[in-house]
Structure formats: C-alpha cells, structure tokens
C-alpha cells in the first residue's frame, strides 16, 4: 500500500532512457521546488514506486518501449492515487487521444521535437505543483475530517449511553436498586420516585417526572410540584409520614398515583440547586413508623450522594459532548466550505495544452466537428468522470448513443459501423 501523504509532493519520473531520468532528477533536486523525486525506468518499476509512495505528479514518457504505453501506465498509477496528474513526454502530441489523456489526468506535454531546457521543464513542473498543492491540502483536510468524524461517531454512542443527557437527573441502576431496596425493607406496597427540575433556560422551565419502583417512567404528573405532596416534604428536609393521604385545604392536590393510598412515607433528596428528588412509599400494612423514617433518611442520604456523583459525572460528559458536538459542527462547516469550492483537479488544463490538443484535433481530416465543440464535450465528460466515476461516463455514453439512434431513425440515416 501507499504510504500516507507527507508535506512535500512526490514526483515520479518514468523514462526508459537513463540520461533523461538523471537529467530530470538533477533539475528537480536542484530547483528548490521542495518535492520528493522518484524515478523508474519502466512501467513495472513505476508501479512498485506507486505502491510505496503516493505519487502526486508523474512525468511519463509516452512511449516507454517494450510496447508499454505511457497513458496505460498513468491509468494504472491512478489506481493508487486517483488524483494523480501527469506531464507526458512525446514527439507526437497531435496524435494524442485528447479525451482519454485529459480524463486520465494529463495536464501538459514536453515535445521531444522542440527544445526542452531546465527552465522550461521546471516552469511546467512548478505550474503543476502549484495546482496540485491546494487540492492536496484539501484532500488531506478531507481525510482528517473523515477520520475525525469516524472517531467521534464511535465515541458519541459511548458518551450518550454513559449518561442520559436529556434526563434532569441520571437515575443509575444503583439508585433504582436502592429505591427498590427501601421499598422492600419498609414493606411498602408500592412507591414512586419523583424528579423535579427547574432550568430558566429551558421551555418549560419546570419539569416533573415520575418513575415506578421498576424504574419505568410514569405519565407526567399533572399536579404542579408547588401543590404536591412531594413539594410539601422538600421544605421539611426530612422523611415524613402521612397517616392519611388526602388533599389538604387548598394547598395540596393528589397525583394520580397517590389517589386511594392509605398511608405514605416521603423522603426528600436535596441533590442540587434546581433539582429535587423525592421518594414516596405507599401503603405499608400497619402504617409507617419511626424505624421506616430512619431507614428512609439513611437511604435518602446515600441516594443523594449517588445522584450528586452521577450528576457530576454527567456534567463531565456533557462538557465532553458539547466539545465534540462543536468540533463536529466546525468540521461540517469546513467540509461544506470545501465542497462549495470546485476542486482544482477538475480545473481545465492550461490554455497552451488545450490549444495543442485543439490543433491536433483540427489536423484530423476525419473530423466533422468544430474542434472547440469537441473539446467542450471532452471537458464535460472529463469532469463527469472525475466527479462521478466511470459508471457515469458509461451512462453518458449510452445517452449519446440513444440520441444518435433516435436522430438516425428520425432522419433516415443508416447506422454506420463503429
């Protein structure tokens, strides 16, 4: 596999002539362009290098000898790095297949029939490196964001499950067990745990939840906490007993789960500012006594401490969660900004290359189309391939063929052999 991208771009020179490779290497290494330079004498050696390094720019001989085609090699190199671009060395630029070459990432040509010196060479390479660098940085950022999101998405469920962030108080299993233990020890027939929370930033600011002995949330209690039995006991700050459970003189109403109860023991847990928890136990045969009250007081102290610890832990989780969410949001914003900017790899080749290709096409006597239209079509297909892959190009080809068949049929033109 390829090694990860480093800060410097990697240029691979592939030419079967050793003096050419040596000259190009010396020009590059002495240029101060700051790129890594690799060389290969043939396609096989080039692929070995591509397997070891991420090649950003390939300088390829069109004709590598032994029947090897530079364009075919570029296609193979693209398997290792789809964003690779290339400069071809050829004496037959006008014979190049422009569509394929552009699609494969050929961005410039060195014409063997024309003078090629160090300055021309380095200018061409430098131009490509300048085009590669922003795209490369974006790719690195993209990869970083993907890795970050992947890591965070693994962490988030853990954080969420570690603390139910939307509950006013995280009722751990330990608290539920304590509640059940208290109910069994006091021989109460039933019980309810009430959690009242107030947060001025929330709508509604007040929230009252009730949980059964089994820890299941009950329907929202309809009586406001301020007019409830639970609200009455928090002011006393001690477990208290009701020998008769009934509404009281316009100050207290009964919740549905308190209706038809004979007696009640309520214990307040003063967990934190804005959060009040009350345990209510119902209907002990013979009624609750001082022993039950003491037991409830001890359980309330213990439960309060557990809930405070759970709250503190949840607070830590919330801080972490908020930080992660903020980072995710920032990452998404960056990704969005990057996506809205066309990737430089999709930029059209430089005008000189286009002109060269246009001339080559214009020289083709078989051409029935104006060269500019052909290039526009080629460019459209190239961008399509870059953005959506070969399947999209195949689909496009089928569309063109369908249109051709339709027009042939409409105009009565015989289908010519392809």
């Amino acid at each position, binding site marked *: 596999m390829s090694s990860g991208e480093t800060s410097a771009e990697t240029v691979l020179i592939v030419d079967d002539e050793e003096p050419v490779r040596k000259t190009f290497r010396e020009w590059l290494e002495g240029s101060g362009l700051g790129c890594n330079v690799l060389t290969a004498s043939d396609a096989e050696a080039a692929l070995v290098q591509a397997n070891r390094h991420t090649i950003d720019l390939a300088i390829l001989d069109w004709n590598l000898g032994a029947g090897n085609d530079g364009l075919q090699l570029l296609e193979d190199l693209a398997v290792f790095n789809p964003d690779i671009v290339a400069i071809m060395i050829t004496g037959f630029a006008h014979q190049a297949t422009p569509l394929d070459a552009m699609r494969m990432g050929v961005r410039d040509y060195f014409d063997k029939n024309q003078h090629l010196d160090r300055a021309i060479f380095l200018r061409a390479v430098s131009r490509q490196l300048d085009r590669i660098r922003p795209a490369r940085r974006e790719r690195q950022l993209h990869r970083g964001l993907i890795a970050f999101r992947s890591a965070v998405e693994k962490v988030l469920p853990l954080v969420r499950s570690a603390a139910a962030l939307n509950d006013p108080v995280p009722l751990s299993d330990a608290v539920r067990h304590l509640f059940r233990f208290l109910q069994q020890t006091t021989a109460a027939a039933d019980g309810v745990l009430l959690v009242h929370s107030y947060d001025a930033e929330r709508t509604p600011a007040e929230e009252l939840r009730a949980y059964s002995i089994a820890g299941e949330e009950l329907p929202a209690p309809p009586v406001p906490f301020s007019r409830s039995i639970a609200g009455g006991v*928090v*002011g006393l700050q*001690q477990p208290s007993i009701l020998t008769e459970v009934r509404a009281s003189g316009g100050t207290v109403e009964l919740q549905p789960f308190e209706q038809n109860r004979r007696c009640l023991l309520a214990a307040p847990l003063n967990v934190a500012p804005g959060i009040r928890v009350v345990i209510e136990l119902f209907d002990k045969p013979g009624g609750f006594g001082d022993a039950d009250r003491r037991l409830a007081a001890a359980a309330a102290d213990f439960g309060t401490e557990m809930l405070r610890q759970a709250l503190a832990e949840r607070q830590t989780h919330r801080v972490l969660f908020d930080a992660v969410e903020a980072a995710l949001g920032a990452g998404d914003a960056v990704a969005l900004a990057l996506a809205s900017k066309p990737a430089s790899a999709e930029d059209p080749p430089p005008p000189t290359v286009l002109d060269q290709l246009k001339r080559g096409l214009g020289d083709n006597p078989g051409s029935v189309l104006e060269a500019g239209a052909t290039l526009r079509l080629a460019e459209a297909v190239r961008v399509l391939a870059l953005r959506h892959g070969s399947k999209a190009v195949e689909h496009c080809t089928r569309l063109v063929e369908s249109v051709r068949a339709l027009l042939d049929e409409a105009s009565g033109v015989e289908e010519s052999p392809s």
Partner: protein
Amino acid sequence: VSDPADVFAQMLSLVTPERLLHDPRATGEGVSVCVVDSGIERSALEAKHNRTDSPIHPIEGAMFAPDSTEPLPYDGRQSSPHGTTVADIVLSLAPRVRLYSADVFGPRGTCEPEVLVRAIRWAADVWKCKVINLSLGIPEQRLQPPLRRLQLQRVIEECYHNDVLVIAAAHNDHPLTRSYPAVFAPPLLSVDKRLFPDPLQFTYEPRAQIEFSAHGRGYLGPFASEPATSWAAPHLTGIAARILSLRPNLKPFEMKTILYWLSQANRPESP
C-alpha cells in the same frame, strides 16, 4: 433597700400567660410579620381564616430570586406548601397580624444566602416588619466563603439593632446538624421543636446555641402533623406577635426577656 431578687420576683409574678397571651387585645393587630419561606397560598389562608369572626388582613409579599436584584411581584401562590403551613400557624395564634410573604425559594426550590439577606433587609426596611420568621436553614458549607456567612450574620444583627425580631428554626436534627441562621443566636430567637398540649406553651432551654422550644405541629398542609422545627418557629412568632400587639415598641432583648419569664412562669410538665 429591698433585695433585688425580690424586685425581679415581683415583676415575674406580673408576667403571666393569662395577662399577656390571653389578653383580648393580644391578636397580633398592628404587628407586621414577614414569613420568609416558600411563598404563601393566599386564597387557602383567606378561605380558612375568613370563616372566623376576625378575618385576616390581605397578605402581601414578593418573590426574591438569585438572578434579580429587585423583588418580583407576589401572585398569591406558594412555591411549595411549606410556607403556607408556616403562615397558617402564625395566623392561628395571631390572626390579626399583617402578613408579608417573602418567597426565597421560588420554582428552583433553593435558597441562596444572598437572596435570604436581601429578603430580610427588604422585610425590615421596606415592609417595616416587626417580626421575621425564618423556618429555614442553610448548612455551613453553603455559607462559604466566610464573607457569605458574615453577610447573613450582619443582616441579623442589623435587625436586632433596628428592633426587628428575627425568629429562626433550628435544624430538625439539631444539634447533630447545625444550620444557619438559627445558630446566630442570641441576636435572634432560635427555636427547637417540642410537643405541648397548648400551642401557646413554649420553654426556654438553651442548648448548643438554640434557646427556645415551641410547639412543633401545624394545622394546615400535608405534613403539618409531622413534628418539625419549621412549625415550632412560627408558634413563637405568633406568640411574639400577640405580645407586640400589646406593646409594639418592645426591643428584641426585651421580648426575649419577657418570653424567658413567661416560660419560667408557665413551665410545662416534662413530656
């Protein structure tokens, strides 16, 4: 020269519950009392006490919140039933007091020391209350740093020097658990709970900075029958209001002396 002890003995013989607490004028009339608590359900108390021959004065008040320096309007509702039970005890003993509700808990259910300080100062300076009932307690750890504790102590002392009587409930587990401002006594009257056959009975039995014990059961609300210092303090408040309606300008130390003498003259049998 007569023996000073005899002078006090003569004075003590004049201070009897019958003369002071059962005087027909000892109704709390002319005395403003502030219940610093969790609000008062005005309609419930009006409905209960207006059925008697001496209807109560309209209850006024305000809500004090940590995030607002100015008090919020009182809508006649309780934040929890506790304050209504306390107010009902005061009205049961001194039905003609002018009652003010300072809700320092609100929907958050927590009383911050700074809020308590503001409420006490407001009751004394704005409402001109002569008696302030505090059936609440703040643990030591919530009065840190020491400046917070000092501010609370200072406002209690201001009340003392301005002839405002502050009556505060001890913690229900006192002296195992100490809470403030009750342990700031003697500038205030600190109250523990006991059960008496007559709610006008009380004792002076100082222990661990708590001086008085009063009747610890209320009359209205879900847990009124549970013995609690929260219910004991307003009993002493009601008793003080009755005495103040006879002599409105009594100073706190005079009131404490009278209460001491009353308790000595009317010692209940040990429960």
